[in-house]
């Protein structure tokens, strides 16, 4: 094929002569490409956000707690959480090869409590934990330190507060370590402030159940048990040694607990693995629906291009005859019309990408999430528009290429 530059010029001249129809097809393709791009960005960014935010729970995290929904009436009547301090201590010492670390979680049904300083207060979630909790939960400290084993052992009234609690109660004050907050008339000395955790995306898709990790107050589980007058542990939080070993670790923990309680309780488990699977399914659904919509728009755009090219072949039959008479081969004519069709589609693709970027900016402004377009999405957008152009232009181009010059020249 000779002189691509000249052929592009020819394609451009032809397109200019059919402005309205060209514009309609460009819009059709642009909508399709914009949709393809939006879906790509949503699923890719969504995945990235979800993984980043799930990491804040610790990707190898697992939870074991009593199955309260158990339908065995005898088991239902049994009192207690099915996990005690003794269980925890025994399991910690020697239980499970796949468990790297273990922490109790003690809380009450009424999760939010008033935490007060002077006249100001904040409603925060209160949880009693062990020394390993911060590691398991992938928490880090902005200020201060973790609990000491002696503080856990001696049921010390010390507390690590979430960043939101700190802001609500102390405002701009920089150093709050050593200050005292009140909870149920008990004084707690602050030993640490947690770093902020971002879970905006998970909250936005309703995956956090209204639970805000930044609005937490963490105290030694032994101290909380003393306040509650109970030896119950409500959830065992653990970290598996490896991602692969998550299920085995859960198995080991529940088997050990069941054995210790002579199978009196049923246990329920959760792991990050399960959460990841669920969120991926949600993203996949979005992706399938979006792709179907994008496909419809692309087909509509493609039909528009097909229509334009079919009309162009009829309207320019004489021109095809002239070109053939002066030496254009069927391949030259085929290439010329395909090029025009791909040209329209690529313009549609570029406009679509611009639409996509506008939609992206709109979504960022509306949702507050910094969605990022991946280059692969742009590449796919352009590739799809070229494919639409070739498919839509093929039949008209073939018709043009097959005309005999004499027949085309006779056309009026």
């Amino acid at each position, binding site marked *: 094929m000779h002189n691509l530059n000249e052929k592009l010029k020819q394609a451009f001249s032809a397109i200019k002569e059919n402005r309205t129809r060209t514009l309609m097809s460009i819009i059709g393709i642009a909508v399709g490409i914009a949709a393809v791009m939006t879906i790509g960005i949503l699923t890719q960014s969504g995945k990235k956000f979800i993984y980043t935010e799930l990491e804040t729970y610790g990707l190898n995290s697992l939870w074991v707690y009593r199955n309260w929904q158990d339908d065995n009436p005898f088991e239902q009547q049994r009192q207690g959480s099915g996990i005690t301090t003794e269980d925890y201590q025994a399991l910690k010492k020697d239980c499970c090869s796949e468990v790297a670390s273990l922490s109790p979680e003690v809380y009450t049904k009424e999760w939010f409590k008033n935490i007060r300083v002077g006249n100001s207060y904040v409603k925060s979630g209160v949880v009693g934990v062990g020394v390993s909790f911060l590691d398991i939960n992938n928490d880090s400290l902005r200020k201060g330190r973790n609990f000491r084993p002696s503080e856990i052992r001696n049921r010390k009234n010390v507390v690590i507060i979430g960043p939101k609690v700190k802001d609500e109660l102390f405002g701009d004050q920089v150093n709050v370590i050593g200050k005292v907050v009140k909870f149920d008339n008990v004084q707690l000395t602050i030993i640490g402030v947690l770093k902020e955790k971002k879970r905006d995306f998970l909250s936005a898709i309703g995956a956090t159940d209204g639970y805000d990790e930044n609005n937490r107050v963490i105290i030694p589980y032994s101290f909380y048990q003393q306040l509650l007058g109970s030896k119950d542990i409500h959830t065992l939080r653990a970290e598996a040694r490896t991602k692969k070993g998550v299920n085995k670790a859960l198995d080991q923990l529940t088997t050990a607990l069941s054995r210790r309680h002579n199978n009196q309780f049923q246990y329920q488990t959760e792991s990050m693995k399960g959460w990841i699977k669920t969120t991926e399914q949600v993203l996949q659904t979005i992706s399938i629906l979006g792709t179907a919509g994008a496909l419809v728009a692309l087909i509509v755009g493609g039909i528009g291009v097909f229509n334009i090219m079919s009309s162009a072949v009829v309207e320019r039959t004489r021109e095809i005859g002239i070109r053939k008479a002066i030496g254009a*081969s069927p*391949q*030259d004519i085929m290439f010329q019309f395909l090029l025009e069709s791909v040209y329209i589609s690529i313009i549609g693709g570029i406009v679509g990408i611009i639409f996509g970027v506008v939609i992206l900016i709109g979504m960022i402004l509306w949702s507050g999430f910094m969605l990022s377009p991946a280059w692969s999405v742009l590449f796919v957008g352009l590739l799809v528009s070229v494919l639409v152009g070739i498919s839509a232009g093929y039949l008209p181009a073939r018709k043009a290429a097959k005309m005999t010059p004499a027949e085309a020249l006779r056309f009026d």
Partner: protein
Amino acid sequence: MIKLYGVNKFYEKDEKILTALSDVNLQIDRGEFIAITGPSGSGKSTLLTILGCLDTPSSGQYVLNDLSVENTSEFELARIRNKQIGFVFQSFNLIPGYTALRNIELPMLYAGVAAANREKRALLALSAVGLGERPYHLPAEMSGGQQQRVAIARAIVNNPQIIIADEPTGSLDDESTIEIMDLFAQLHRGGRTIIFVTHNMNLLSYANRVVRLAHGNIIDA
């Protein structure tokens, strides 16, 4: 160089078969200036399209420079039209959106000539037909005579041996007719074979041989 042996051309129209050419035998030698004439519907234009490889005979044989056209692929025919034959039509057949220069460049584009060379040669061809000063005019901005000159420049730009013209002066006034025919005469003197169809008896004197057609048959060659 051009030999037609028992050439027939049929068209199908409304389920009827029309005979455009019937058992045409003709030989045209290199460097001849041939006028083809005859009443409307006598098959002049059909003969021209076959001679110019724009169409193939329904039966019979057409040999062009020792090549039997019936057995030639459409790709090869395109090359022959591009390199060996230059066409001039009654209605000029320039591409309306292209300037004179771009119209003249087209055959070179299909011949694979590089852009810079194309422009140079197109300007030379335009000068050769006396329009050197109007390279960037669109067809609509030129008179009929000027458009036909551009068409002639396009026909000669790849330096073909044969020029085929279908009523080249049919749309022109007397003055332009003479100018165009003089151009053909000049090309003929340069060694080219000229074959043109005309109704105008006054133009037959330009030719060194007249082929007369009636009802698809050659009645005088």
